[in-house]
């Protein structure tokens, strides 16, 4: 107990007993927990004096550091701040250079377009377009196969080729063209008498129009049936005329047939493929035939000579279930 030292706390003033202890330990006040500085000072006279000096020195240093730090705060922006004032100017210059380039490009384009515009000559264009339409029409007039789009045009092309075929005999050529021109299943004959060639075509009405099947017809009246037959005959005549006109035919005979139920005087009936209407076109009238595919009735019928007309003997009977 004799080794114990009494040290008064500089903070709360309470007296503390302290045993001898190693140097790395720091005693604290038992009441307030403050370090017992006085103890250290009491260790020895030399260390006490040293500690006090150190503390004062540290205090002075710390105190001196304050203005240094403050000075640092003030001076740091000058050291660290970089000058970027050139950058916006450089960017602005780059932008203006870019603008100038773009404006130049635009001006060049405008000049080019103006030049192109100045070179447009509507009269010249008109000439080119007219020539193009004219060439196209000429190609059509010479039956250029690229314009043969519809089945009818394809058939016409085929007829033209047959008419021009020099390997066939005269009769064969006429028959071949007529076969192409006439409806499917037509009966075609080429006759020759005193050097005059006649072409005979008998076709079934059902092969050219819908609604005609066996003895049945879509027509309600004989008049309507007759009109359609005349139109069909005109159509066939036009086709034959158009492609046989260079074959020096003397006459063209076209007949339309239909299945008809015939009642005989004795009451018996039979179904026969009967000729309804037959026309004839003479050579001297053929040049007058104008070929308008849209107006067959008008352009053709006035030049047709009727050979047979059996409509008067017909009667249409309607049946229904």
């Amino acid at each position, binding site marked *: 107990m004799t080794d114990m030292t009494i040290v008064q706390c*500089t*903070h709360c003033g309470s007296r503390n007993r302290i045993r001898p202890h190693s140097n790395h330990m720091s005693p604290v006040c038992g009441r307030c927990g*403050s370090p017992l*500085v006085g103890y250290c000072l009491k260790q020895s006279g030399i260390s006490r004096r040293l500690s006090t000096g150190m503390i004062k020195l*540290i*205090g002075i240093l*710390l*105190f001196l550091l*304050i203005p240094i730090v*403050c000075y*640092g*705060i003030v001076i*740091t*922006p000058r050291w*660290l701040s*970089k000058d*970027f004032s050139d*950058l*916006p100017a450089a*960017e*602005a210059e*780059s*932008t203006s250079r*870019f603008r100038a380039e*773009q*404006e130049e*490009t*635009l001006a060049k*384009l405008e000049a080019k*377009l103006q030049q*192109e*515009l100045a070179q*447009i000559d*509507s009269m010249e*264009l*008109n000439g*080119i*377009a007219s020539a*193009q*339409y004219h060439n*196209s*029409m000429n190609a*059509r*007039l010479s039956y250029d196969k690229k314009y043969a789009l519809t089945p*009818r*045009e394809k058939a*016409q092309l085929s007829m033209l080729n047959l008419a021009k075929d020099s390997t066939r005999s005269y009769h064969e050529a006429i028959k071949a063209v007529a076969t192409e021109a006439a409806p499917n299943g037509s009966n075609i004959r080429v006759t020759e008498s005193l050097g005059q060639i006649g072409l005979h075509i008998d076709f079934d009405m059902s092969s050219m*129009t*819908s*609604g005609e*099947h066996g003895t049945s017809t*879509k027509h309600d009246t004989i008049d309507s049936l007759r009109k359609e037959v005349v139109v069909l005959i005109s159509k066939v005549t036009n086709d034959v005329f158009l492609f046989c006109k260079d074959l020096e035919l003397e006459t063209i005979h076209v007949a339309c047939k239909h299945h008809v139920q015939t009642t005989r005087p004795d009451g018996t009936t039979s179904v026969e493929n009967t000729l309804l209407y037959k026309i004839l076109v003479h050579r001297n009238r053929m040049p007058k035939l104008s070929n*308008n*595919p*849209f*107006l067959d*009735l*008008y352009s053709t019928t006035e030049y047709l000579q009727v050979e047979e007309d059996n409509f008067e003997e017909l009667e249409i009977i309607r049946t*229904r*279930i």
Partner: protein
Amino acid sequence: MRIFRLIGLVLLLPLVVWGIEVLYLLQRNASTPSKIQTQGKAGRTRLMAEFKGKERDLVRDYEQRKYLATGETAYDRIFNTQGQTINQLIQCIATEALPKTWSCEVQVEEFTHFLLLILLPHNEERVAATRIAVHLKPIIAYCNPYLSDVAVFDRNHKSYLFFDQEILEHLRNGGNLTDALVAKVEHQGRSFTRFNSTTIPCEKHESHLFLSTEVIGPSALVTCYALFDTGASTTVLSSEVITATGNDDLTTAPKRTFQTANGLLSCPIVRREVNLAGIRRNIEVAVNQRDEVNLIGMNYFSGLKYIVDSEASCIHVWEK
């Protein structure tokens, strides 16, 4: 000791401020150049977009001026269009010359006969030949000598005026349509039936249209009434009609299921020719084994156009 603490605190505060200041400055140094460059780039991008817009406007303006420079009038410009076919020429000139609500088609027959079909809209009455002739003048002037004929169709797709080449030539030479020419145009128009619609007469019962239908099978032709049903995809015929027109074995025939008002219905499918007012079509027909109802479905009208005139109880049909 208190003084030490005070000094420490006073020192700590400027130290923290200094640190923040340093960090701020370093960050500013690092980010400022890229920020300025980004702003510059954005400005140039805006500029580029602005110039692109100007370029587009310039080209558009040029195209317009180029088009206008190809001719004095719209007709001249259409005529002068390069690489255009005669069909396109007639079609474009006619579209320009005719009222906007009218439509037109060009048909070519036998290589060289160009026919212009003028189709009046469904809500317009027949227009007089003299008025049509006024619209035709620029067409005739610019499509000469290619246009052969002009046919005018009414709202039921029936031709009622036909201007042949002779009349078109007369109009081109400044002539007017006299009464005699109008009569000829009308007469030809009535007789020109090539592209006309076919009128299928109907019988109206409780707002339903019934059509007199010819059914042609392998063994016979039978006429019956069928309901016009725009909601039926397939034509349906009763088993009575089917057996009367052919000897199909309905038990082995392929079947198809239909959604009907009375639920799902499975029907055998056979082929028959169906003829309505002369329009004969070979189509698939569903056999109705449940009742005697016959329906004309939409498969009959495939490849055709039609107008239903419920007031006149008829259907106008023509080929597309």
